[in-house]
């Protein structure tokens, strides 16, 4: 290793560290993939439940909105008062003012 200020090129330094990192590889436990898959299935299950819950909430909101709109809808004007025998509305006599 040179004692110069600049030292070896960065690429060479990096290659040295790269070799250090690559050295020993631990054995992979046999059940690692199975454990990961089981956990992944749980994640999927949770996502599915969450989606279902969201759909239920949206549906409930839609129904509530429908009910609210129906309740607030202006009722059609009530039928006009029946006409008299002459085809004109009977005169409503008012009491004294």
């Amino acid at each position: 290793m040179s004692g110069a200020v600049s030292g070896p090129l960065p690429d060479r330094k990096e290659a040295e560290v790269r070799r250090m990192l690559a050295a020993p590889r631990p054995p992979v436990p046999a059940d690692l993939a199975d454990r990961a898959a089981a956990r992944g299935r749980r994640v999927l299950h949770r996502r599915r439940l969450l989606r279902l819950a969201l759909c239920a909430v949206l549906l409930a909101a839609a129904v509530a909105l429908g009910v609210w709109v129906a309740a607030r809808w202006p009722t059609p004007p009530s039928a006009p008062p029946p006409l008299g025998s002459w085809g004109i509305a009977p005169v409503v006599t008012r009491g004294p003012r």
Partner: protein
Amino acid sequence: MVGARHEAQERRRAREFETFTAGAAGRLLHAATLLTGDPAEGERLLVAALARTYADWFRMRGDDPYAHTRQELAARFAHRAWRYRRPRGGLLDRLPPRERLVLVLRLYEGVPEEQAAAQLGLPPERLRTLCLRAVAAMRSRT
């Protein structure tokens, strides 16, 4: 009908995932162990990252599952970096978590500088500085 198709899709997911893990787990486990220092902790980190890959298998849309898992691994490690602050042994024992992450992504995994910077949410110059510092620290250890 829908149930049968769903079943078939889940079987395909499990099969493809198994093939992927058989090929990639060794390398990923080494990366995770370099990050955490402790083999058991590395294994836990990898299982969590792989579980996400399993769940996202059909969502990746042609994305490389290896890159997806690596990204998940890095994100999980960065998120829980405070946990790994205390040295736990291993080759990168003396480096702070972020330098470990930079070193593993850049030099062990060979992720390009811009991509690694984007993954860690750092400017490229900062990443380069961290990498140089980590390399110097690694070479100074005897």
